[in-house]
């Protein structure tokens, strides 16, 4: 390329990719007419461009295969996903859902399970197939169900389809613990025990999972495709269909059963072969059908006139009304989910005082307060909170989660034995309550396996942490160097490099500190690099290299772009930048 033509290069690039403006294209063409080397450059570039485009196109089959494989792989994942999120809110949600999911599924199927099901009846007898039930359901406008739930206390359930507006309905659910009324777009949830009433509009429920559940029923997001039965069948580990007689009426019927390991449930349904509709349902909170069923309904009344007044809701005198997102716990939860941990913490502390004592709500808030402290880097405070939860909330599910939280915290603090003990306690506490693959049992098991696997590093890491606490940086340096040398775990190696840098920094060997911080950034770009950049910035600042410090803090923010803004060290980095910039703007 002629050095004089260098300025045309970028225009040729833009020309090849079709982004050059028309006037510039004209002048480029003029130049090309008279310049062999630029023409050659253009040809080569065009060749490469075409090759790359073609290469990209032929990989389209790879992409299709990739998509199919991913979808096939996630289809194998059990429906109830164990999550790493250590929040009891999810558990509360799960409780509600597991208690009523089957009833809900049936009700939805009753009203909306319209088509798309291609589920041939199993075995030789085709007396019943789910399509027939779906067909029969199309003529159902109202349903009343009664039965028992939880400890055998009665519940009643009414639902009425809105004939004019598809997808809208009225619903009333009553049990000794709660009354829920849905009126098309409004929901009332009242707890007689605490005298708390929540009122929400459909648009307000995003951060309110337990109540959102009822609207999901209304919006049918999970069931729109009408494949709920199909999913129930696919996810059951031992699906059976047995033909027989109803024990009371003697009518022909089919009994359908299935168990769900991930949700720790056993489901039993009876369909009438004449009407093809569900007439009885039972759900156990274990997969072996042991003990009393959690949900037992043997009274299904279809198409009986239900007056609209059944769905009226009168606010009980003296009820404490929380209007949805304005409730203290909902506000705190929103802040928590937004990653504003400091504000969330304060909001939780306020809400905690107002919540009914020793209830699930308080326990869940305590758990999230602990999480806030963890995220703010205040591990000791977090430990206190989790230990308080263990002392005060003896409900096995809550207790199990508190143990899990504590174990997780100890593993973060490199206290392996204490972590293992907490995870063992967690498993022991929730054994039999939650399925082997449910939260937190599976997570605790996985954490124990991880701790055992990384066993060799743990004593050293704990030793280093103790030395850091005592501010004995000379010995901490020796231990950190040993970890870096010996470990087979890249995460530990990356961490050891920061520790080494940290020790050197505190031993006033700033050049060495910079060397190791930079090394950690260079060698482990896949790790979370926010602390690395932050500490590097601090050393630069200490050594009066303002520009470099500023860059390092900015890189820290860049590295933490996807993290909540208050997480350590992002907030500190922001403050440092502010400080440095204000210093440099001073005359």
């Amino acid at each position: 390329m002629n050095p004089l033509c260098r300025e045309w290069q970028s225009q040729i690039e833009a020309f090849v990719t079709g982004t050059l403006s028309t006037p510039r294209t004209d002048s480029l063409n003029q130049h090309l007419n008279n310049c062999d080397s630029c023409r050659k450059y253009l040809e080569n570039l065009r060749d490469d461009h075409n090759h790359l485009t073609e290469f990209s196109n032929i990989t389209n089959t790879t992409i299709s295969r990739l998509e199919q494989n991913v979808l096939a792989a996630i289809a194998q994942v059990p429906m109830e996903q164990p999550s790493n999120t250590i929040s009891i809110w999810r558990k509360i949600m799960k409780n509600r859902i597991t208690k009523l999911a089957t009833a809900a599924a049936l009700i939805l199927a009753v009203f909306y399970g319209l088509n798309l099901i291609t589920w041939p009846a199993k075995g030789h007898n085709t007396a019943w197939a789910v399509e027939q039930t779906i067909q029969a359901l199309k003529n159902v406008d109202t349903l009343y169900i009664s039965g028992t739930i939880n400890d055998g206390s009665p519940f009643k359930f009414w639902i009425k389809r809105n004939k004019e507006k598809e997808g809208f309905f009225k619903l009333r659910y009553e049990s000794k613990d709660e009354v829920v009324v849905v009126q098309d777009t409004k929901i009332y949830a009242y707890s007689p025990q605490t005298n708390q009433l929540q009122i929400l509009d459909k648009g307000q429920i995003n951060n309110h999972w337990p109540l959102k559940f009822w609207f999901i029923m209304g919006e049918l997001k999970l069931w729109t495709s009408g494949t709920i039965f199909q999913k129930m069948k696919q996810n059951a580990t031992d699906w059976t269909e047995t033909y027989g007689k109803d024990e009371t009426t003697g009518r022909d019927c089919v009994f359908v059963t299935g168990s769900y390991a991930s949700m720790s449930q056993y489901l039993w349904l009876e369909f009438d072969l004449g009407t093809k509709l569900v007439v009885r349902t039972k759900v156990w909170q274990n997969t072996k059908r042991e003990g009393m069923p959690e949900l037992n309904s043997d009274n299904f009344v279809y198409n009986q006139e239900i007056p609209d007044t059944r769905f009226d809701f009168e606010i009980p005198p003296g009820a404490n009304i929380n209007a949805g997102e304005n409730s203290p716990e909902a506000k705190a939860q929103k802040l928590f989910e937004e990653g504003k941990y400091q504000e969330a913490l304060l909001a939780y502390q306020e809400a905690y005082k107002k919540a009914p004592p020793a209830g699930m709500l308080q326990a869940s808030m305590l758990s999230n307060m602990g999480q806030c402290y963890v995220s703010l880097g205040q591990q000791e405070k977090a430990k206190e909170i989790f230990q308080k939860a263990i002392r005060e909330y003896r409900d096995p599910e809550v207790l199990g989660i508190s143990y899990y939280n504590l174990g997780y915290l100890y593993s973060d603090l490199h206290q392996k034995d204490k972590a293992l003990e907490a995870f063992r306690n967690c498993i022991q506490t929730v054994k039999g309550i939650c399925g082997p693959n449910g939260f937190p049992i599976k997570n605790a098991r996985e954490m124990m396996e991880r701790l055992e696997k990384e066993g060799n590093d743990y004593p050293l890491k704990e030793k280093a942490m103790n030395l850091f606490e005592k501010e004995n940086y000379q010995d901490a340096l020796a231990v950190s160097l040993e970890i870096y040398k010996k470990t087979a775990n890249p995460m530990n190696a990356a961490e050891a490099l920061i520790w080494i840098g940290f020790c050197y920094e505190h031993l006033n060997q700033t050049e060495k500190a910079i060397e190791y911080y930079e090394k950690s950034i260079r060698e482990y770009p896949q790790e979370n690099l926010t602390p690395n950049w932050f500490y590097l910035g601090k050393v630069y600042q200490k050594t009066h290299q303002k520009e470099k410090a500023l860059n390092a803090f900015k890189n820290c923010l860049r590295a933490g772009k996807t993290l909540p803004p208050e997480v350590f060290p992002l907030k500190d980095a922001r403050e440092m930048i502010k400080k440095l910039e204000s210093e440099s703007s001073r005359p």
Partner: protein
Amino acid sequence: MADTRRGDRAAYAILVGRHAKRIFAICLAVVGNTHDAEDIAQDTLVKGFLQINTLRDEGQFAPWLTRIARNQCMDFLRRVKRGENFLEESRTKSQPHTSEYPELQSALRQLPEEFRLPLLLYYFDGQSIKNVAEPLNITEAGVHTRISRARKELRRILTEQGDKP
């Protein structure tokens, strides 16, 4: 996204359709061959589904998934580096796919990652320069420069390869 968080596979399928090509391009840029890139992209997208509840800000799905992809690639490269059976396996596994522009793939592998990634994101994902710049934390001008240098470097490597007997 909220549906995906509840484990709705159909909702996640939409996200897969939207992001598969980009994730594949990233994996290809890092590991350098289509076969391993496909495997790692698959692991990434499955992991995305399994861990969706750990994503706090739904608006950050794309960078979050990109981070998973890069971590998966780094894990893979480390394993290859350590020779934990993967080297041989990946070499033999890569054989059937060499028909997919072997020279180009080999040339791409030789490009420095800082050039390779913008180039592949641009070509594979059909992204605008602006959209390539964002997740890589570089300016649009930076993307232009890198793509341009990548093309030049690619040309140099391909020419050298062509000269070989």
